[in-house]
């Protein structure tokens, strides 16, 4: 029995070590990028990409920052993502209220409409969106991207939130109706406040998802001054006079905001992924 336990313990250590090394391997690209973003070009060409930097310098990062006006790109991404997070939550709330609390007839069909609106490939929307945006004078504005993602994300939010609302205590709803509460009061005073935690999860998700979007912002935002972080970083990548430290500086600035979000919202994000799959 004891021998068996010891053998089991050795096995557990081996597994721990193996998974740990594997995790380090998965994380190593981040380390390599960070290491080379703080070298200057001379040190890079002398020692190559794998050497630790002798002296850390932020000069390359500063140069890249100034060149693409990274502050402006952060602001664009922030404005778009925050607006979509707010508006898509406001979009999902009444629709999910009607479907989850009101249990409208045909709600299964409505839910299908919302989920399809979210899963349709953006490629099948891109050219008409581009044409209509031009006709309406919205092309190359942050507003165009905000409108499109409010609807696409809000559609998913409706789907998720209405299944949460379906489990909302009926007694509360019925009691409110007996007290002569209007439907709007029911939504604003009772249902919405009671589901604030879920709304916060949705908000976080909408923000991060919109930040990470690539295809439609690429199509709808053409001028440099309006681009978002992922697009600005990928455009810079394609230019010829980009040396290796500059390339790693661009990659570093591309992923740093996301790492910050991850550290801030880690719980919400990992739990939310799970909530989205199986309720």
């Amino acid at each position, binding site marked *: 029995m004891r021998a068996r336990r010891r053998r089991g313990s050795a096995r557990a250590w081996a597994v721990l070590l193996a998974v740990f090394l594997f995790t380090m391997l998965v994380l190593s690209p981040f380390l390599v990028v960070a290491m080379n973003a703080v070298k200057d070009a001379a040190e890079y060409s002398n020692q190559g990409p794998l050497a630790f930097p002798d002296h850390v310098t932020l000069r390359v990062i500063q140069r890249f920052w100034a060149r693409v006006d990274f502050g402006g790109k952060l602001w664009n991404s922030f404005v778009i993502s925050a607006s979509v997070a707010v508006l898509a939550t406001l979009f999902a709330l009444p629709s999910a209220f009607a479907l989850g609390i009101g249990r409208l007839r045909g709600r299964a069909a409505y839910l299908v409409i919302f989920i399809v609106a979210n899963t349709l490939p953006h490629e099948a929307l891109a050219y008409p969106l581009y044409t209509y945006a031009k006709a309406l004078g919205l092309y190359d504005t942050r507003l165009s991207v905000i409108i499109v993602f409010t609807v696409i994300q809000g559609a998913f939010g409706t789907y998720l939130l209405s299944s949460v609302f379906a489990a909302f205590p009926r007694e509360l709803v019925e009691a409110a109706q007996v007290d002569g509460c209007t439907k709007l009061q029911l939504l604003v005073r009772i249902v919405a406040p009671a589901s604030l935690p879920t709304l916060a999860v949705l908000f976080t998700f909408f923000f991060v998802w919109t930040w990470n979007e690539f*295809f439609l912002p690429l199509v709808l935002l053409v001028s440099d001054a309006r681009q978002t972080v992922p697009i600005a970083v990928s455009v810079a990548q394609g230019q010829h006079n980009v040396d290796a430290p500059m390339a790693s500086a661009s990659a570093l600035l591309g992923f740093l905001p996301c790492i910050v979000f991850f550290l801030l919202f880690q719980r919400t994000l990992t739990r939310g992924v799970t909530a989205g799959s199986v309720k």
Partner: protein
Amino acid sequence: MRRRSARSALHRGYGPFLVPGLALVALVVGLPFLTNVAVSFTRWTGVGWPRWAGLANYRRAFADATFWASFENNLVLLLAVTVIPTLLGLVLAVLLYDTVARRFGARPVAALKAGLYVPQVLPVAVAGIVWGWILDPGGGALNAALHAVGLGRFAGNWLGDPDTALPSIMGIMVWFQLGYPLVIFMAAVQRIDPQLLEAAELDGARWHHRFHLVSHLVRPELLVVVLTTTIYALKLFGPIYVLTRGGPGNATIVPSYFAYQNFFEKARVGYGAAISTLMTLIILVLTALFIRAQHRQERALEGR
């Protein structure tokens, strides 16, 4: 009878709350989608009016080697986006839950899980940029690492060589995707009664039997992961745009990028619309499967 009217009173008045949402979906998603379908039956450069072309774009697609290459590459990429991350995620979830957590507690497990999840939080285009530089044939880190450990003869022009371009993209996608199934399966295995696994161990069940048992127990999640990642694989665009632009030749062309090219680089809007409409058909079938699976699951949960 009275009950019924009471019930309908409770359910009346919700309709207006649904109207804005439905209207916006119709306007911002429905209208562009139908326009795209209509455009797929026309010849159009994007300037002036489209000219009716019937099924010409579809006939052209089915006869176009690049079109087929894009879907073939997509099937291969399915390995990297769905199959390998799902299997690897399941193995890691079982290892972490069944071995590491039991011996070392929840903390190291949480840390390892978070570490493996990190690539998932990046925009996939940025993930491409991170790797584009590492795989660079000149001063990239991968070739440097291979030289450093004496495997220099394996160094190559990873993304520039038609033989290694698609496998390189696949490697990047496995790296990027792994965290998603892992996190979902980690949540799922917590549902499993630990005594079941212990019993299997005492019975002397071999590891692959336990793996089998677990994969059976997390079947609902398995289905969800496979369907959502398959849909995702079909839409893959960012890394291709950033890294290879479909090349060299057609080595890494995918439907999404092929549609984009026709829309915005070749001014063959009708053809691009046809390609994206065909993509949509496949995705709608997968979405239908997804909804049915969720439905069945909900009923199973209610029945429990």
